[in-house]
């Protein structure tokens, strides 16, 4: 009789999973595409590393200054931005987030604890965790340089703070994923977001008042806010270090215990989601069989778009239907307004001392929001076929040129951008002030230039560097590294050119100059777009095997 006690240990399982991920990575280097991915990944990592090192130096210097000048409690001023970045970046910048599917691990004799560790560890291998951890290391170094005796306490507090952040990020991510997966919860989330934005109308005047008021008022405001923030994780961590600095070790230990309680509470909420996933939760939107009434569905005729051929209209309709059923993508699309909101809350960078950069240059809110809307749209534009999966084969067996397919997708994405711009215009008006006509026209002209550039590059990359993505699951919309890298280059070029033009026009106090320049750029860009679209069939057919193979492969 065979030995039945074969359940492997957690360590062996984790090692096996790590090994298989490594083997997959090594095998991916066999193809040119795989090697390009690696090179792009290295460049992206270098980009992040530059930001990380800058932040590391800043946090080290900041922590050193605060501790050596006896303002240890103000370490919260460093920990808060780190905390916000850690939590918001993965949700806002899903292009850098890779939420890999662990459901196929469930068939193995994997214990819940192994599953939870895998979800937490693999989910944390993303830029926000890496950079934030680096910055925390900087804080610890700064504290240690200023006061070596404080280092053990600081290290303990920061390790606890880091663990809490890792758990909180995973917790937020898993709950947002859950809420976006189904229509009902998605709608509730949408309404909450709307209320959040509307409520800002009440907070806005308050912020403006404090933003514009004299220094003593601002100080009074900070004094009121300070005790509240001490109760929250970044403030608690800073308080623990400050108490240790003052020799109140019992208080420091108690404060650290509060941090531990926060961590435990967060872990419990995360555990609820992980447990559900471990039990094989299915978040599909299919109506349960018992709900089937036997009703025969009426097949509605497809959309008719004036002046547009049947196949192009059909693809346009399909694109819009896909998007309307994708909670994660809809969530991403409201981000431009959210970003305007975030900008409204950020401290002043202006010498005039007003509430925020955009509060002092509120006419820039619409251009910045529109640029961000375009940036978000690149997620779709640069990986046109990603959501189709095996369905992409249909485009190659149907009697429709690929240029028509691309045209339809570009039309759909352009329509979404137009709607986004309306949303941003209204949002900018509500949060700041209605954009001036000249600014509005200049922004529209700028987008008319930036859009064809992105569509052109997007069409080419969609064919040459596709990646299967899942519109239905949060954090599984990440394009290939090559695409992300190329998209960075294009955005730097386009946004840089647009910013220089706008700044120059502003310095002459002639915004219409920017409009005129953008329109000239736009004319050239549309000509290039049209030429590339004409030749796209040839490129699509020469790349069809790789394209189909990539999109039909199992995730």
């Amino acid at each position, binding site marked *: *009789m*065979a030995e039945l006690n074969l359940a492997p240990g957690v360590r062996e399982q984790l090692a096996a999973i790590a090994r298989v991920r490594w083997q997959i990575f090594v095998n991916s280097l066999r193809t040119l595409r795989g090697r390009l991915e690696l090179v792009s990944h290295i460049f992206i990592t270098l980009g992040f590393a530059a930001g990380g090192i800058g932040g590391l130096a800043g946090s080290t210097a900041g922590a050193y200054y605060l501790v050596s000048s006896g303002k240890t409690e103000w370490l919260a001023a460093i920990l808060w931005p780190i905390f916000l970045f850690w939590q918001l970046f993965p949700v806002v910048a899903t292009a850098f987030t890779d939420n890999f599917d662990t459901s196929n691990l469930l068939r193995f004799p994997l214990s819940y604890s192994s599953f939870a560790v895998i979800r937490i560890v693999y989910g944390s291998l993303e830029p926000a965790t890496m950079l934030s951890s680096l910055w925390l290391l900087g804080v610890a170094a700064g504290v240690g340089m200023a006061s070596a005796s404080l280092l053990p306490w600081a290290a303990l507090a920061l390790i606890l703070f880091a663990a809490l952040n890792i758990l909180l990020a995973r917790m937020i991510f898993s709950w947002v994923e859950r809420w976006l997966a189904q229509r009902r919860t998605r709608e509730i989330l949408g309404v909450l977001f709307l209320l959040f934005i509307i409520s800002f109308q009440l907070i806005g005047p308050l912020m403006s008042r404090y933003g514009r008021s004299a220094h003593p008022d601002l100080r009074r405001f900070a004094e009121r806010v300070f005790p509240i923030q001490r109760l929250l994780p970044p403030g608690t961590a800073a308080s623990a270090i400050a108490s240790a600095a003052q020799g109140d070790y019992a208080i420091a230990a108690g404060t650290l215990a509060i941090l531990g309680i926060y961590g435990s509470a967060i872990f419990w909420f995360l555990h609820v989601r992980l447990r559900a996933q471990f039990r094989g939760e299915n978040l599909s939107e299919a109506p349960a069989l018992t709900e089937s009434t036997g009703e025969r569905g009426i097949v509605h005729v497809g959309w008719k778009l004036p002046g547009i051929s049947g*196949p192009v209209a059909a693809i346009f309709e399909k694109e819009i239907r896909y998007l309307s059923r994708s909670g994660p993508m809809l969530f991403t699309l409201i981000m431009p307004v959210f970003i305007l909101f975030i900008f409204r809350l950020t401290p002043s960078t202006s010498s005039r001392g007003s509430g925020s950069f955009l509060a002092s240059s509120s006419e820039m809110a619409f251009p910045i929001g529109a640029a961000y809307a375009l940036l978000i749209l690149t997620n779709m534009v640069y990986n046109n076929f990603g959501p189709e999966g095996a369905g992409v084969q249909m485009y190659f067996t149907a009697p429709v040129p690929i240029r028509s397919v691309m045209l339809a997708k570009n039309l759909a994405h352009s329509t979404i951008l137009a709607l986004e711009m309306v949303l941003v215009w209204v949002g900018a008006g509500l949060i700041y002030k209605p954009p001036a006509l000249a600014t509005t026209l200049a922004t529209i002209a700028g987008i008319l230039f930036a859009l064809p550039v992105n569509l052109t590059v997007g069409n080419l990359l969609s064919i040459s560097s596709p990646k299967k993505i899942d519109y239905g699951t949060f954090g599984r919309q990440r394009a290939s590294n090559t695409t992300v890298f190329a998209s960075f280059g294009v955005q730097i070029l386009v946004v840089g050119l647009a910013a220089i033009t706008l700044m120059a026009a502003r310095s002459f106090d002639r915004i219409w100059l920017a409009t005129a320049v953008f329109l000239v750029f736009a004319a050239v860009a549309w000509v290039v777009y049209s030429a590339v679209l004409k030749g796209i069939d040839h490129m699509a057919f020469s790349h069809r095997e790789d394209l189909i193979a990539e999109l039909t492969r199992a995730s």
Partner: protein
Amino acid sequence: MSSPAISTDGLTRRFGPLTAVEDVDLRVAPGQFFGFLGPNGAGKSTTIKMLTGLLAPTAGRIEILGLDLAAHPLEVKRQIGVVPEGMALFGRLTGAEYLNFVGRMYGLDRETAAKRAAELLDFMQLADQPKKLVTDYSHGMQKKLALAAAVIHGPKILFLDEPFEGVDAIASGTLKAMLQSMISRGATIFLTSHVLEIVERLCSHLAIIHRGRLVAQGSLEELRAGVEAQAAAALSSDGGRATTVVAPGEKLTLEQIFLRIVGGAPPADQELSWLS
């Protein structure tokens, strides 16, 4: 004599050093229910991909209904329907939306596409859960939907890559009924399958590909006669010592013919002693 529905000359496909399909000359007459068989990795899917425009041949020529596929891809595609490997469905549409979409891609007007979509959903017994997304369909339902999509424009030739794989007896019955009705109306069907019993029952003509080369082609009777003749020749050459192919009065099944042609042998006895 009318031109073949499908014909290939010297069809070859190489993937680097590997030759997946080599010098294949196929002839499929109009109205035939044609089965394309072969062991795993023999080149079936590669061939069907080339015939449907999903893969470019390295060498050779493909004619569909007398039209050169390379020169007239769109004209050819208008007249064929395809259920490729992986089915090419769009998971986040409902069945009705998907059929409507495919119909319009093949040039049907909006009203016709919607009418045919409704009829096909009814025929395939997929109409009673109209709000269900394709991604939530069972495998069998997806196969039925893929077939419905492949025929919505009334193609003259239908290419099916493993249409019966993972399909239950009820769904399989529905699929077979539809295919036979198409054949009775003059369509040509080109099918690959591993389910030899179904192929034997449905197909009038067959081709067998092995290690990228076409090793047999013809009607089932022609293939049977060929194998029996070979067996008889072998029997006489060794003075009657070899065992007979089949008992007197019985016919070789397609499975036996297939195994004779591709030389399949049962796996050697192995000891996997740890298996309970």
